[in-house]
């Protein structure tokens, strides 16, 4: 749909062609569907899922309306390296029922992640979206990848990278020797003590 064709629709409105083209450009800019990318490395899946659900519904836009299909695409990468707080890897249980008798399955988060590294994020986002018929279409616009590799067509579409919700703490091996030396010694060991 090019601007000239749309401009012809405005022939009798009293707007000059430049204003008509500008209106088209602005319309496209506001209602365009953008592609976001989130890196889930060392991040809690719940916080990733809230960010995804907000953008899939379109609630981050001032022009949001539930019926106006204003959701964006979200790509989540590195879901294999997701980090749960506490002991949730062992305590959190994902349940499902196949519908047949004796088909109730309960799997811990660690087992589910081993079987399918994408499932935890997918289930988290699915549970945070509104329970209506739009949910399935919004899930189709969510793209989850277990590692860094993206197909080229998705990589070409990406527009913005979202900041990570959790600050990744630094390991002791990642500190430089100068930083370690700059930190003062809190206590002096007795001279005779056999250290470590």
């Amino acid at each position, binding site marked *: 749909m090019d601007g000239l064709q749309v401009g012809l629709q405005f022939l009798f409105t009293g707007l000059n062609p430049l204003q008509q083209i500008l209106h088209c450009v602005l319309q496209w800019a506001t209602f365009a569907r953008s592609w976001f990318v989130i890196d889930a490395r060392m991040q809690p899946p719940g916080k990733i899922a809230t960010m995804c659900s907000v953008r899939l519904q379109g609630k981050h836009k001032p022009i949001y309306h539930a019926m106006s299909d204003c959701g964006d695409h979200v790509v989540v990468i590195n879901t294999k390296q997701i*980090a749960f*707080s506490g002991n949730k*890897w062992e305590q959190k249980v994902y349940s499902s029922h196949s519908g047949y008798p004796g088909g109730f399955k*309960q799997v811990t988060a660690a087992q589910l992640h081993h079987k399918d590294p994408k499932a935890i994020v997918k289930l988290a986002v699915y549970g945070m979206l509104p329970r209506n018929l739009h949910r399935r279409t919004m899930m189709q616009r969510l793209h989850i990848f277990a590692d860094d590799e993206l197909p080229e067509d998705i990589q070409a579409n990406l527009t913005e990278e979202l900041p990570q919700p959790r600050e990744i*703490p630094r*390991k*002791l091996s990642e500190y430089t020797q100068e930083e370690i030396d700059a930190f003062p010694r*809190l206590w002096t060991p007795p001279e005779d003590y056999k250290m470590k």
Partner: protein
Amino acid sequence: MAARSMLRSVWTSFAGLKVGATCPMVKVQQRIIVPQLPALTVQSRGIRQVVEKKDNKTTTIEGQILDVPAAPQPPNPTAKCPIYRWNLQHKYNYTDVLLLSQFIRSDGGLLPRKITGLCLEEHRKIAICVQMAHRAGLLPDHKPKLPEGHVPKRPKPQLNRYLTRWSIDSVKPIYKSGLKWSKRRMPVGDPALKDNVCYSVKPLYLKH
């Protein structure tokens, strides 16, 4: 003090012998010469290095004072516990690895309280933070030494975690988590660190 330094030099000369028969002697001497004093009451004039000079018939044993750069003064020097001396109470977390690494051994264990001089509550808090840091993988070089040629039977799953209160093998899955008004919550972090300074608007949640 002179007698002490002389006895000390005798100990070092014995230690150089490395003969099995004299080992218990050396240990006894160590016990006599090295009293277990808490770090605070030791009045040290400086760490000394024992130097032996041998002429034809005379041997001079001298304790030469090493030049140790003066450590910066803590803001509250009158307190007993090192954390209270530096005003770090309620301010550290499992991520402050530079602080925690000062109180651990090379295989990851904590040093005894009598040596470090920590008060009981801070010692326990530091123990909890070190545990959480180990489980988060923030202290990769402080692992215990495995015997040579040890191959683990099953490859352990490399799962990222943080703020883990309980040990990994001791926790059981919550099969029946309950309804919204009576859920069995999953604990995160530790109640000992509840009084930590919170710079965010949201409070620290311990039950997720």
